[in-house]
């Protein structure tokens, strides 16, 4: 019997595992890095153990500290969650060696599946179809396009698509470097790249008594940067034959390697219906919730039961209905998915029957550069796929998420896109439909108006409170307020609040029904809408209304006379750590020449010379932490500095 479980993880997955523990009566132990000292998962655990430091390598990847923590806190089992040490056979072994229960398959199985090349060999031996590897040195144009992958990787890191033989060496080097940095091994391999393929995976649950369940498939084709964005169960548009063949392949593969616990067999499904084994994930998947929704199972509970030696019933439950999950990331899809950091000011996703939110954040959570920018998973279930998509899209659209840029709009658009609703999903979906999905949303003039009126309603001064905001006995000038939206577009609002109501320039059809600091009700041509307005200490204003979620920042009436960075200054595009500096002060640089790399959110961002000239000043050194907007270097253009 497990009585106390340590979760060697953070964020939403730690909270999700704790939830099941609470339902089963199991005590919970969290671990946390210094960056997570105030994170929700820490607060929700019965006990929490600090892992000193911020970097993952000092904290969540320190198996020795985590085993020590489990023993110190009196835990009798360790759940690794996903990511971090979840597929680390050495860690699994260390947990077992410490006399603790390990929530996952035996270390030998993890090791076997950990190397993609070895896993493929084992699966091929079990009769599971695979894509055969291509030796990159001897690749010909007939093999193109090629996909280079890290052997021990995942999550898209160390992955490159090559469409030109000449680009192979550079791609290999890049993939190796990234693999080495991310996974500690620079082993990569090469295989044919299937265009417009689908990513379909099978959920496996196996007990220690020889029962192996396959719990239906999930489609995880909607990806960006090789990372999943939207996942669903079942996969749309599969024939029963394909479905069965996939399940059989997964099941026989799992049996062949003696799999135990929850795992996932990932397949690449080609447009022609053929499929190939990609890899086996020996852990709980991020997207396990969609399977839970359609099967009614609690996979974490079953992981724990299997670890306790319980046997699965002979037959798995029959899946029912359709579930879709959307991963809410703090990132800006319009800016090449750039991760966004900051403080979550508000995080409210309206609850509804059929909606499940697994969130790692709440109002006040600081999302930093240290970890994955996933904020939450929102999962919807309904009898049919269309209904589930509608429900999920609506929940996302109605969510109030303030303080960070997120991919929420993109998710809602993808879920309502005709091609998605037609089941036409594949890994290039987001790129193919970029025009529809990434279209800049124009900010309705009602949003800045609502912001201005909420501000007016919250005005307090030395004069009597009940005197109408902006009152004039002679109406000479309107109130003028200006706001910047997220794209840097300025919106000017000119309005008067008169005895006869609102008079807003250019919005003659808009009437003010009521206003309060947090809510403005406007009537536009007979359509009444409530704008919920939230203002935060950093002066940012968020306006949420049906079909609208806008973040604005007020523009001062007076120009900023404080010092501005000189011309040619290169500013940090985001907070991060300087990975390396490639050019020396005083050197001649040409436009586009790499000057330095900034590491943030596990990605390296190149900072290049904006123009030909001289690198006049380098303000940073490798390893230095910089905040967004920090001056990294100054390039003086060839002609000499502009005055």
């Amino acid at each position: 019997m497990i009585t106390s479980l340590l979760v060697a993880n953070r964020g939403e997955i730690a909270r999700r595992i704790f939830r099941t523990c609470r339902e089963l009566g199991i005590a919970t132990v969290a671990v946390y890095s210094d960056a997570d000292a105030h994170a929700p998962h820490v607060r929700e655990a019965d006990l929490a153990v600090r892992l000193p430091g911020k970097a993952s390598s000092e904290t969540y990847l320190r198996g020795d500290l985590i085993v020590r923590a489990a023993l110190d806190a009196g835990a009798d089992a360790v759940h690794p969650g996903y990511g971090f040490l979840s597929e680390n056979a050495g860690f699994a072994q260390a947990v077992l060696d410490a006399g603790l229960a390990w929530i996952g398959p035996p270390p030998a199985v993890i090791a076997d599946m950990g190397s993609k090349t070895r896993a493929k060999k084992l699966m091929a031996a079990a009769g599971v179809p695979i894509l055969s590897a291509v030796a990159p040195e001897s690749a010909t144009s007939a093999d193109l396009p090629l996909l280079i992958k890290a052997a021990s990787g995942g999550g898209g890191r160390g992955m490159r698509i090559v469409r030109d033989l000449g680009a192979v060496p550079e791609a290999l080097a890049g993939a190796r470097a990234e693999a080495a940095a991310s996974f500690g091994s620079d082993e990569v391999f090469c295989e044919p790249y299937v265009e417009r393929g689908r990513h379909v995976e099978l959920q496996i649950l196996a007990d220690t008594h020889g029962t192996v369940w396959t719990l239906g498939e999930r489609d995880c084709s909607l990806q960006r940067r090789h990372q999943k964005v939207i996942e669903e169960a079942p996969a749309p548009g599969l024939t029963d034959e394909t479905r069965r063949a996939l399940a059989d392949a997964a099941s026989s593969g799992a049996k062949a390697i003696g799999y135990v616990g929850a795992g996932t067999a990932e397949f690449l499904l080609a447009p022609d219906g053929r499929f190939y084994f990609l890899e086996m994930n020996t852990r709980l998947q991020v997207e396990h919730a969609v399977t839970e929704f359609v099967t009614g199972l609690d996979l974490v509970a079953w992981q724990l039961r299997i670890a306790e030696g319980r046997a699965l019933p002979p037959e798995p439950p029959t899946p029912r209905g359709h579930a879709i999950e959307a991963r809410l990331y703090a990132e800006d899809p319009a800016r090449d998915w750039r991760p966004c950091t900051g403080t979550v000011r508000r995080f409210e996703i309206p609850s509804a029957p059929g909606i499940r939110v697994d969130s790692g954040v709440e109002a006040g959570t600081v999302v930093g550069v240290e970890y994955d920018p996933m904020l939450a998973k929102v999962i919807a279930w309904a009898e049919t796929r269309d209904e589930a998509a509608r429900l999920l899209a609506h929940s996302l659209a109605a969510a109030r998420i303030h303080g960070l840029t997120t991919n929420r709009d993109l998710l809602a658009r993808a879920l309502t896109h005709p091609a998605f609703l037609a089941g036409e999903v594949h890994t290039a979906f987001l790129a193919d439909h970029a025009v529809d999905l990434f279209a800049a949303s124009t900010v309705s003039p009602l949003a800045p108006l609502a912001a201005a009126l909420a501000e007016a309603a919250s005005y307090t001064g030395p004069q009597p409170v009940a005197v109408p905001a902006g009152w004039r006995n002679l109406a000479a000038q309107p109130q003028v307020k200006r706001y910047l939206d997220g794209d840097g577009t300025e919106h000017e609002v000119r309005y008067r609040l008169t005895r006869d109501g609102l008079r807003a320039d250019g919005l003659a059809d808009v009437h003010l029904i009521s206003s309060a600091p947090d809510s403005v009700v406007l009537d536009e041509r007979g359509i009444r809408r409530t704008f919920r307005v939230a203002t935060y200490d950093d002066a940012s204003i968020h306006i949420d209304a049906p079909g609208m979620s806008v973040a604005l920042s007020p523009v001062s009436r007076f120009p900023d006379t404080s010092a501005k960075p000189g011309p040619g200054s290169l500013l940090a595009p985001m907070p991060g750590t300087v990975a390396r500096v490639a050019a020396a002060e005083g050197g001649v640089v040409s436009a586009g020449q790499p000057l330095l790399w900034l590491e943030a959110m596990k990605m390296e961002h190149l900072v290049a010379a904006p123009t030909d000239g001289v690198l006049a000043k380098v303000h940073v050194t490798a390893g230095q932490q910089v905040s967004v907007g920090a001056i990294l270097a100054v390039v003086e253009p060839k002609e000499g500095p502009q005055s």
Partner: protein
Amino acid sequence: MTILATRLDPSSESYQANRLDMLAKLEALDAEHGKALDGGGPKYVERHRKRGKLLARERIELLIDPDSAFLELSPLAAWGTEYPVGAALVSGIGVVEGVECVITASDPTVRGGASNPWTLRKALRANEIARVNRLPLVNLVESAGADLPSQKEVFIPGGAVFRDLTRLSAAGIPTVAVVFGNSTAGGAYIPGMSDHVVMVKERSKVFLGGPPLVKMATGEESDDESLGGAEMHARVSGLADYFAVDELDAIRAARRIVSRLNWTKSGPGPLASGSAPAPEHDEDELLGIVPGDLKAPFDPREVIARTVDGSDFDEFKPLYGPSLATGWATVHGYPVGILANARGVLFSEESQKSAQFIQLANQRDIPLLFLHNTTGYMVGREYEQGGMIKHGSAMINAVSNSRVPHISVLIGASYGAGHYGMCGRAFEPRFLFAWPSAKCAVMGPQQLAGVLSIVSRQSAAASGRPFDEEGDAAMRALVEQQIESESLPAFLSGRLYDDGVIDPRDTRTVLGLCLSAAHNAPIEGARGYGVFRM
């Protein structure tokens, strides 16, 4: 709670007629206000803008806090004179960085912002409001100086502008000058006498004598910038404390100055924090109370019921001297004692009651509100013998020596010594406003014409001359017309006899703003004797 009931019937014919009459007067008032807003007219406004300059009211809007209220004062100054309505100056009470200030801004589109006799009176009135209510004064200056053709009326009394500035400073009331353009010769003493001075790069021009005058006086060759530019005054003479790069920067600097004044209101705050209860009765109905013909009496309690918090009014001595209603209420949370003429005439009882009431308000440090609709003190043998003068004098004595803030609103007639007793302009109420329905003169036009007619008839009889009946009728019509026009609010406002003509529906707001402004100074009534029961 003593909630006033209403007998006003908005569906009645008289209400509807009164309302239409008032709306017509408001429309006419809007048109006059429009003249002030137009400043020097499109041509000069355009020229001013082309120079990259902000208009006077734009400067004020940027100076005051967003969404704060601004009470413009004396907008009709110079109405009915040879000078443009508004008198080339905008003045009012606004909030800068959370501080209520008196703000003036020269309107350079009106004859270069030059000071004519009415500009001067308006500026002096603004200074007085700053002084008596202890409000910081911010002057946004851009003026060509004195209007030379009227120098005889501007030059000698105009010294008071500079005297006021330094006396305000001496009294601890901050003064700020932001010089946007010309402020030369005498005008140079506006920055000279102010506590804080902001000048604008390449715009401010502050010198005693310009290049031509200097050349004439000493033969020296010079230019504007070296004689009086912002940079010179900021770096060399030290007259400027803040060097602003442009107008916006100058206004920003002025706001920073006010934010650093360490200003707190010396008077008590409103009784209850938060929003005071609105009147129980509809403020919109204030339009239908006062009849177009002031001969018909109306109950001022209907006005009070639509002005004071929660329509809650505790009447003092309702059965004694019923021609004047007196009582206690709050307006936007500020306690007030109200005196309101109920039936026009003031008798001995009303006079005694008001003297007692004013003494009570002084003992309690409660501001007084006077709602005028009086034809004056009662005349006639019985009343003279009854001591009407003594009793009226007691009331005027009480009003004159009362030291709590007074606010007068002329809602109907304000004739004769009744105007004095009800705290007319000469009795220095902190603020005095008129409704468009108001009339104010020594007596009604018909009475005045009639008196003149009787006097000339007696004179003819005494000297045995035949009386010219036809001439008399013509004279009476002419006098009546003249007095009528000179009793009207726009005319009186033009001569600075009030601080503005207001929409009746704004009365509560205006009173709230004025009471709030007045509470920047301590509220201390006159003391000395106990309250005389009269």
